[in-house]
């Protein structure tokens, strides 16, 4: 199983330490790295906590984590859920030392929910102070509207109870009405505290108004104590249940809303035909969701392009200038998770291979973490889509390229094939002329030229054919061949002027090589023809083959003028002729580049060296084949 590291993010100042140690582990194991923060919708973080949280999220992103922001009041449950779905192997979390022993600490519950994962607990002294938060939260909970509603409902309930009491129905009905009242309060109001207050008030009112002695809080009949207790507990529990239900429904709808946004966005994106379109859809969607001005720049070759921005109706001010600077800094550093200035926040839209675009959001009034999460999710979705588009286009291009390549190869093949038949007639007739009119000098010269040129054309056709084979597929058909056979065959097909040179063959016995015979013969013919063409008549040309460790080295050596060092550098480039060819003898310069390609396809390289005292050595190796003599 591969490792997957999960780190729990929090607004604690020491959370950074935990993130770093998790990131180190992830880097060490080369494993995927996820950061998670569970937002409790019931609790609003204080401004500086929120800020620290954003910093920690940014840090995690920077260190390579994929940050997930989840919602729920039970962090352990949500984290465990994520950990299971991602097959997380190690969880890093901070915990105040004091809470470690507590039965329901986050760490203990995670241990219970995700028994497969290793859990690393890092002492965290500064983890958010719950009691303090509780108070901060409660202040907000007293909303006059909710209080008024609770009082009105309670008063209404009391009125109904009064009527029931007057009409001499059983007291049990009164209790039911009060339980109903606290249930209604719990549903209507935002916090369960109203339900609890209601339950308490109902108990007091029932005691005060409807039990003997009436209009006092005294109790004569001890049986009523049980009734009071049951009534209080029933309305308290009913209220709590109702408010929890409501909370769950709210959470679910919040999650559903976000899922819907992402889904709709995804559907919109599917319709994008190109990258520009994709970015525009993203920007439009974000503008609607965040109600802020959004701008983007496309990036090409690591440089930010032109700014795309939509002006909102009455506001016609230019987009904040600092965006440009931030964009440039983001382009320069591919690892930055984003950059924020005074007025704008710039986020990179980065695919698997490169940076596609930079998206900037005006940060007039800080983005809360929900908005931030939406923003980052949409950016991630957008970059995924851009990746898809890019990949699709690359595949298409590759297909076109392959088709072009095939067309080229087919063309070359049929061309060089069709060359041969007319060349047979041309060279054959020239040869016949040469044979039949030995005494006419002029005819001999013309026939000789025709023969030479058709020979050259044939050589070129052979090279084109070999090139179409090697370049279109890079595929060679090797078999075991005798080095000597290859060289002899090449000598036979070399230039017809070979008798003007002293060509010798020096080959060790029984040298077996693994080679594509046709192609290697073509290489040797090219090397021989070059040596014949570029050395004066009477020069020595020696072809050698000898064992060199587990390989067989071939050398074509001449004692001509040699090749200057600057020419050597470009010798194997395509369509480059040796400078000496400029004197009139044609050459496409195909021969040597073809030789290099063929030898390369055999997994070796071709080299050119100086001969002593003068001349050229062209040399290459081929894979040798061991041979044992079973029959001797």
């Amino acid at each position, binding site marked *: 199983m591969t490792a997957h590291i999960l780190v729990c993010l929090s607004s604690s100042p020491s959370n950074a330490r935990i993130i770093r140690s998790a990131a180190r582990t992830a880097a060490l194991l080369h494993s995927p790295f996820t950061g998670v923060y569970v937002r409790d919708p019931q609790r609003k973080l204080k401004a500086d906590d929120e800020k620290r949280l954003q910093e920690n999220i940014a840090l995690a992103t920077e260190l390579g984590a994929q940050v997930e922001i989840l919602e729920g009041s039970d962090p352990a449950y949500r984290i465990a859920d994520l950990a299971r779905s991602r097959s997380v192997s190690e969880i890093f979390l901070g915990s105040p030392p004091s809470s470690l022993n507590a039965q329901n600490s986050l760490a203990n519950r995670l241990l219970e929910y995700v028994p497969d994962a290793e859990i690393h607990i890092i002492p965290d002294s500064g983890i958010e102070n719950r009691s303090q938060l509780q108070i901060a939260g409660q202040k907000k909970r007293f909303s006059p509207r909710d209080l008024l509603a609770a009082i009105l409902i309670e008063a209404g309930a009391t009125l109904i109870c009064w009527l029931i009491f007057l009409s001499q129905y059983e007291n049990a009905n009164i209790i039911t009405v009060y339980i109903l009242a606290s249930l209604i309060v719990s549903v209507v109001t935002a916090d369960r505290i109203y339900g609890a207050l209601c339950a308490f008030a109902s108990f007091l009112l029932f005691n005060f108004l409807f039990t003997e002695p009436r209009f006092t809080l005294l109790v004569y009949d001890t049986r009523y104590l049980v009734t009071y207790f049951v009534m209080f507990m029933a309305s308290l529990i009913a209220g709590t249940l109702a408010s929890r239900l409501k909370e769950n429904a709210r959470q679910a709808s919040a999650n559903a809303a976000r899922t819907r946004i992402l889904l709709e966005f995804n559907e919109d994106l599917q319709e994008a035909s190109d990258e520009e379109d994709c970015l525009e859809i993203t920007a439009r969607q974000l503008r609607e969701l965040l109600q802020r001005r959004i701008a983007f720049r496309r990036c090409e070759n690591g440089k930010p392009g032109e700014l795309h921005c939509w002006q909102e109706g009455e506001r016609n001010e230019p987009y904040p200038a600092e965006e440009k600077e931030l964009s440039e800094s983001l382009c320069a550093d591919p690892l930055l998770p984003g950059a924020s200035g005074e007025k704008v926040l710039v986020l990179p839209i980065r695919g698997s291979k490169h940076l596609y675009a930079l998206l900037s959001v005006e940060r007039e009034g800080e983005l809360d973490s929900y908005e931030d999460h939406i923003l980052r999710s949409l950016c991630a979705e957008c970059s995924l889509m851009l990746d898809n588009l890019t990949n699709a286009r690359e595949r298409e291009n590759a297909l076109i390229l392959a088709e072009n390549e095939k067309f080229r190869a087919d063309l070359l093949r049929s061309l060089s094939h069709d060359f041969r038949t007319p*060349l047979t007639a041309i060279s054959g007739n020239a040869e016949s002329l040469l044979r039949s009119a030995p005494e006419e000098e002029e005819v001999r010269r013309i026939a000789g030229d025709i023969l030479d040129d058709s020979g050259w054309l044939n050589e070129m056709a052979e090279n084109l054919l070999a090139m179409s084979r090697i370049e279109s597929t890079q595929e060679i058909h090797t*078999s075991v061949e005798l080095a000597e056979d290859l060289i002899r065959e090449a000598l036979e097909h070399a230039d017809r002027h070979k008798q003007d040179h002293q060509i010798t063959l020096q080959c060790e016995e029984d040298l077996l090589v693994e080679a594509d015979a046709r192609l290697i013969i073509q290489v040797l013919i090219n090397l021989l023809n070059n040596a014949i063409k570029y050395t004066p008549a009477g020069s020595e040309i020696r072809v050698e083959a000898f064992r060199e460790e587990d390989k067989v080295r071939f050398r074509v050596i001449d004692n001509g003028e040699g090749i200057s060092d600057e020419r050597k550098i470009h010798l194997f480039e395509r369509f480059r002729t040796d400078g000496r060819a400029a004197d009139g003898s044609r050459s496409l310069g195909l021969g040597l580049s073809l030789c290099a390609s063929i030898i390369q396809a055999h997994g070796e390289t071709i080299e050119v060296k100086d001969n002593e005292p003068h001349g050229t050595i062209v040399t290459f190796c081929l894979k040798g084949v061991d041979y044992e003599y079973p029959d001797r």
Partner: protein
Amino acid sequence: MNILIVEDDRSVANLIAATLRSSDYHYQIAQNGKEAILQAASHAPDIILLDLGLPDIDGVEVIESVRGFSQAPIIVISARSEDSDKITALDAGADDYLTKPFSVEELLARLRSTARRLQYVSSDEPASPLFVNGVLQIDRDAQEVTLNGEIIHLTPVEYRLLTLLAQHAGKVLTHSYLMKEIWHCVPDESVKANLRVNMASLRRKIEKSPDARGMIQTHVGIGYRLLKY
């Protein structure tokens, strides 16, 4: 000597015709495969020069049809440099091949050597244990090979290879044919290596005599041939 030229390209047909005329051969020209089979049946040519790329039927089919009624040597002329075409043709019953563009000199040399072989085949007495080819002499009964009268020592495989080549002197024998005949097994890389090395060694032993130089021809990627002197 009567030769059938099967060639659809007019210039090449003319070239071959002119070459044959200059060397006093008789010839007919067939321009497609069907015509070729008809003429081969009606004129009974001594040698057939067959272009593989015919407009109507595949050259290999022509070889197979002709082999149904005639054992006349077939020299295949191919513009295709792919070895597999030539091997298919040789295995189908062709004796030799020429690759376009070929030289006139080469064409005449092939015709001469084929003609010599025809003489040998016609004068062949199957009972004769003696095979004589220039300075080379093989005595099948004594399993003895002499070169200029001197005995040369061959390994069993070399001897079998030589007798096989001698039996089909003048004809190009493909690698797969030789491997099947000598080793009786499916050819793989090690058998191929075996064949190459044994052939090279055999050739070295025979070419010790300057008179026998070039008697065994290597056709890289295709096969070997013992040239009939």
